């Protein structure tokens, strides 16, 4: 690829980034106008929703950068649950997937089981988790781990298994010792697929966090169910929008990490 095409692509991406945010702003404006016309309590105006949000998030003292109690009591604990459980899944899933993928026979035995576990909609297992772990953080974490683990495992297995034969031959002929095999050859080669699994499971983690919190009564999930049942629709919409924003931010952050780790890959601009 020559330099001008790269520059041209950069230009196009910057352009498309501006356009994509313009479309986003237009959608919010459209919401505002429709809500203004509809004039119903179920569908508050966007400015009202954002205003409520600002009150909730930025009601704190100056030394806390104005961040309100809600940030520390609701948003951060929820995020910590989702991210902590997801990170645990990531470590366990990559380790498990690598072991299964490296083994000659393990997937012949366990493949169907894992595909089955992955196919069970995790939301339906909420009652089971409540019985097993009681109501509380443990149950939430268990639900998130269970639902995020399998995509990571399966992607890792796939990545570990699809290491190019020529690369294997090359590494062997260059005398790569066995104990460096995983770190120097297998995992780097599998990394693109592992990251695909991590991104998929990150969005699942947010989803399961909310469901588990609605069921278990804590964090953002509790706020959504409470405001809904007490007819505080403006605040309810704010929490919904916040979840969207959090999901977007987390995915962008992971993408940034991915670009850093997989910077060696050619032409990765298309999935920005």
């Amino acid at each position, binding site marked *: 690829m020559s330099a001008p095409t790269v520059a041209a692509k950069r230009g196009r991406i910057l352009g498309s980034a501006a356009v994509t945010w313009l479309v986003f702003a237009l959608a919010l404006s459209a919401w505002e106008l429709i809500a203004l016309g509809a004039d119903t309590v179920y569908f508050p105006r966007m400015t009202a929703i954002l205003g409520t949000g600002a009150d909730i998030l930025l009601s704190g003292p100056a030394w806390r950068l104005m961040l309100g109690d809600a940030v520390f009591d609701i948003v951060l604990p929820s995020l910590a649950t989702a991210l902590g459980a997801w990170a645990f899944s990531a470590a366990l899933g990559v380790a498990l997937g690598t072991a299964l993928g490296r083994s000659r026979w393990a997937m012949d035995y366990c493949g169907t089981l894992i595909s089955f576990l992955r196919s069970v909609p995790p939301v339906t297992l909420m009652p089971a988790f409540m019985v097993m772990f009681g109501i509380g953080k443990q149950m939430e974490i268990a639900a998130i781990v269970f639902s995020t683990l399998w995509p990571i495992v399966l992607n890792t297995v796939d990545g570990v298994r699809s290491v190019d034969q020529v690369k294997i*031959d090359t590494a062997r002929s260059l005398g790569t010792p066995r104990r460096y095999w995983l770190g120097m*050859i297998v995992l780097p*080669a599998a990394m693109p697929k592992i990251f695909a699994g991590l991104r998929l499971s990150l969005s699942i983690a947010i989803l399961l966090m909310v469901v588990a919190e609605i069921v278990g009564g804590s964090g953002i999930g509790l706020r959504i169910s409470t405001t809904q049942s007490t007819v505080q629709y403006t605040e309810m919409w704010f929490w919904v929008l916040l979840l969207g924003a959090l999901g977007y931010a987390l995915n962008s952050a992971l993408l940034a990490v991915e670009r850093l780790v997989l910077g060696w890959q050619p032409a990765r601009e298309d999935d920005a």
Partner: protein
Amino acid sequence: MSTMLEVSGLTHQYGQGERAHVAVRDLTFTIESGQLACIVGPSGCGKSTLLRCISGLIPATGGSVRLHGDEVSGVPDDLAVVFQDYSRSLFPWLTVAKNVEFPLRWQKVPKADRKRRAEEVLESVGLSGVGKKYPWQLSGGMQQRVSIARALVSRPALLLMDEPFASVDAQTRGELEDLTRRVQRELGSTILLVTHDIDESVYLADRVLVLSKSPAAIVADLDIALPADRDQITTRESEQFVSLRSEVARLLQSPQVQRTGEADTTDAAHAAGESGDAAGARTDAGSGAGSDRFTETHGTAESSDETATARS
């Protein structure tokens, strides 16, 4: 000159019983230190299998390979391979410099030395200043130069090259051929290169081994007495070059006639002997070189074949 590589009675078959496919049957030859030898054979004749057996990537089902006297079992330390498909052979997650340094990591070479040696060898293949780039940012020919640099960086006793220039354009191919000859003479390395290209084998080599169709057997062993300094244009138009390439071409064609007779004989040892004789005769008629070598070869072939029959 000492013997670098000694292949005797090498046989490899894939699968077992009725579905078995014999890729290489009873190959015997030696490569001397400092030689650049080419093995030329038709596509699918088992050349790659032969190389994989020599490099220890797969254990041969019969016969033995010795690298400067040591029996090869598993991948030897002082051997390197350049594969045809550079885009699959280079590690895309490492920069060019890190790719080249890669084999030195396992030889406990200090980091600073690794860096210096990688720079040196990259320079000798005409690639100074690209160390920080990733392989995909280079052209195909440059990528194959990186593979060659990586193979040479640890100064291997033997460099194996498996159709190394088959995936690049004709212009680049000529450049890489000249590069290979130059580097081989500068470093005094021993190279065994496998190709299906007759012209390439004659142009590159000090010695050409001609293989038959699958299962591969050696039909001729030619000394290439072309001057050491070769030129893509003048060498290729010289009478000597033209007659050598015609000879190799004929050798590659004619064994088919001979093989029909061979197929009737079920006795493997007998068949191998026959092909050895025929090839020896032809080599004499051609260049007059290598007849002694063939009598030797013949002897080893028979004895190793006896052991093979005894085992089976």
